[in-house]
C-alpha cells in the first residue's frame, strides 16, 4: 500500500483539524473582517465638522455677532446665555466664545490645549476681520485632492493583515503544539520513527497552507467593501506575508518548545501579541509614541511587518525600499526558531 510521506500526512491531518474547528475559522477569517468593518465605519472619512462657536444672547453685541456668523457656512453657531455657554465650553461642546464690546474690540475665549479650539479661533477671527473690511493681499488657490492610500482604512487594513498573520502563527503553532503535548499525543509520536524536524515542519507548513487564503480574503474584503487598492506588487505582498508568518512561527516554536500546559502557552502568546498590537502601530501610527521608544518599536517584528505591508499596499514600494524590514523579520524568525528547536522536548 502506498502512503504519503509522514510530513505530508501530518500536514494533511493538521489542515483537516483546522477546517473542522469552527472557533479557529472565526478567529482567522471573520474576526479581522469584523474589526475592519467596525473600525472602518467608525473612522471613515467625513467632511470635518465646522468649528462650534458661542455667542452670548441678550446683550448689546448679540445682534451684530449673529449677523456676522449666522449666515457663515464655516462655523456652527450656538447662541445662549453666558453661563450656559461657559458650561458648554468647559465640556468641549463648543470650541470658542466670541465677545464684542462697545468700542468694537473682540475677545476670543477658548482652550488653547485643544487643536479644534485653536482652529475655531482662526476661523472666527477671519470671518470677523473680513466682515469689517479686511482684504487679503495674497491670492490663494487650494489643491485638496489626496493621494490614494491615505485614508484610515488604507492604514488599517495592512495592520489587520499583519495582526492576523501574527495571531494565526502564534496560536495555531504554539497552542496546537502544546495541546498535543498535554494530551500525551506528542509522546506517542515520539515512540515512532517520526523525526522531530518532520513534526515541527508539519506545523509550519500547515500554517503556510492557509496563508494565501487569509491574505487574499482580507485584501479582497478591503477592495470590495472599502475600495482599498494594493498599489505595489501583489506577489511581493504575498512574499512578505510569507516571511512574516515564518518569523512568528519561530516565536511560536520557542514559546511551545517545552511548555506542557495550554494555560502557560496562552500566557506567553498574549504577553507577546498584546504589547505589539499597541506598540507596533496596528490601529494607529507608532510615530505618536515618545522618541526614546522609537528605536525599540522599530525592531519589533510586528512593526517591521506592518511597515513592509503598508509600504507595498499604500506606497507601491519595491523590495529595495523594505529591505530593512525584511532583514528584521528574517533575523527574529531565524533566532527564535533555532533556539526553539534546540529547546524542544517531546514531553
Amino acid at each position: 500500500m502506498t502512503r504519503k510521506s509522514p510530513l505530508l500526512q501530518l500536514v494533511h491531518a493538521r489542515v483537516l483539524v483546522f477546517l473542522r474547528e469552527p472557533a479557529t475559522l472565526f478567529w482567522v477569517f471573520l474576526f479581522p473582517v469584523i474589526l475592519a468593518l467596525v473600525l472602518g465605519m467608525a473612522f471613515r472619512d467625513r467632511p470635518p465638522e465646522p468649528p462650534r462657536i458661542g455667542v452670548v444672547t441678550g446683550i448689546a453685541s448679540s445682534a451684530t455677532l449673529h449677523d456676522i456668523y449666522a449666515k457663515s457656512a464655516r462655523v456652527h453657531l450656538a447662541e445662549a446665555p453666558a453661563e450656559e455657554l461657559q458650561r458648554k465650553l468647559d465640556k468641549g461642546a463648543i470650541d470658542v466664545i466670541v465677545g464684542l464690546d462697545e468700542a468694537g474690540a473682540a475677545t476670543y475665549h477658548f482652550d488653547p490645549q485643544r487643536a479644534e479650539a485653536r482652529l475655531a479661533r482662526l476661523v472666527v477671527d477671519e470671518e470677523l476681520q473680513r466682515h469689517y473690511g479686511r482684504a487679503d493681499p495674497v491670492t490663494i488657490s487650494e489643491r485638496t485632492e489626496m493621494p490614494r492610500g491615505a485614508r484610515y482604512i488604507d492604514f488599517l487594513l495592512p495592520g489587520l493583515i499583519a495582526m492576523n498573520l501574527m495571531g494565526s502563527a502564534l496560536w495555531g503553532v504554539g497552542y496546537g503544539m502544546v495541546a498535543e503535548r498535554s494530551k500525551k499525543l506528542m509522546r506517542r509520536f515520539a515512540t515512532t520513527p517520526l523525526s522531530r524536524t518532520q513534526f515541527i515542519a508539519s506545523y509550519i507548513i500547515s500554517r503556510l497552507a492557509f496563508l494565501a487564503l487569509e491574505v487574499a480574503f482580507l485584501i479582497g474584503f478591503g477592495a470590495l467593501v472599502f475600495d482599498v487598492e494594493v498599489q505595489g506588487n501583489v506577489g511581493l505582498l504575498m512574499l512578505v506575508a510569507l516571511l512574516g508568518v515564518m518569523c512568528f512561527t519561530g516565536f511560536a516554536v520557542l514559546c511551545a518548545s517545552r511548555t506542557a500546559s495550554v494555560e502557560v502557552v496562552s500566557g506567553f502568546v498574549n504577553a507577546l501579541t498584546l504589547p505589539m498590537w499597541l506598540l507596533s502601530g496596528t490601529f494607529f501610527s507608532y510615530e505618536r509614541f515618545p522618541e526614546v521608544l522609537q528605536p525599540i518599536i522599530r525592531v519589533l517584528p510586528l512593526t517591521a511587518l506592518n511597515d513592509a505591508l503598508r509600504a507595498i499596499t499604500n506606497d507601491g514600494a519595491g523590495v529595495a525600499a523594505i529591505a530593512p524590514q525584511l532583514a528584521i523579520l528574517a533575523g527574529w524568525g531565524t533566532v527564535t526558531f533555532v533556539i526553539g528547536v534546540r529547546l524542544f522536548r517531546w514531553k
Partner: protein
Amino acid sequence: MTAAIECRALVKRYPDIVAVDGLDLVVHTGECLAVLGPNGAGKTTTVEMIEGLTAATSGEIRVFGVAWGASAAGDRQIRSSIGVALQETRFQERLTVSETIELFASFFGESRPTAELVALVGLEAKQSGRVGKLSGGQLQRLALACALVGKPRLVCLDEPTTGLDPQSRRQIWDIVSRFKADGGTVLLTTHYMEEAAQLADRVAIMNRGKIIALDTPAALVASLAAEDIVDFTSDRPFTNERLLTLPGVSGATADGLKYRLQVKAVADTLPALFAAASESGVHIVTLGTHQATLEDVFVHHTGRGLQD
C-alpha cells in the same frame, strides 16, 4: 535467537524517588511477559525506558539486540520495530478513526492496510466517525490499531484495559492474543492478575522498583505450595500455632479476627478447622474459599494487595 528485550541493572532515579531500582529482565522473542504490580511499583517507568521515552539513570536496554542510545540509526531501528500503546493518549478528536490510523501508518516504512487494521480491532462501523465520539473501549482498540500499524515485532502495552468494562477488556485480549499467535512479542503491564493469567506466558511481579518474582503463572501459584485459600472470621481469637497444626495448612496469616490459610485441599482442612473451633469454644462467623491465584502470590510476596 536474540531476546526481544534485555534490561541490565536498569535504574531510574528521580529527585524524590527511585522509580526503578536495579532491574534485570529478559523478554524472549515470541512470548508475552506481563509486569504485574500495584500503582507506583515502577511498571510504567520501566516500559517507558524500553520504549525510549525516558532516559535511564544507569543500566542498559537492548531491543532485538540493539542498545538504546548507541546511535541515531539504531534508535530509529528500535522505534520501527516497536508498537506502543501508552497508558493515556488522547488522539486528535477531530480526525476520524481511519485518518488517525493512516497518520500513524505514514510514520513507518512498512505498514499494514488501514482497512485490515480497522477490521482487526473491530472498528468497521466507526472508521469514518470522529475519534472524539468513541467510547473508552473503542479508543483503546484504536490505540491498539495504531500500535500494530507499523508491522512491529514487539508491542508494549501499558495497562491497556484499565478502566474498561469486562467485554471491552475481552476484545482487547483477543486482539493481543492474535498478534502473539502470529509470532509477535508482547510486553504488558497490568494490575489485573486476571489479565496477566489470561495473556502472559510469564509474569514478573514488580514492587517498589524491583522484580520480586518471575515465572510462568502456574509456577508462581505453585510456589505458594497451596492449591486453595481459606478466608474466615471468628468471634474470638485463634492462635497461629493452632492453625498451622491443622492438616494441609502451609501458611496462616491473621489480621485481627480475620484469618487467611494457604491449604493443600479444602476438604481435608475444613472439618479439622470446625472441630478445633468447637473444641476451644470459638464461633466461625464467616468463611470463604477460593483457588490460589497470582493475587495470592502477590500478597504472599509483598504483604499487600494489587489494588491497594
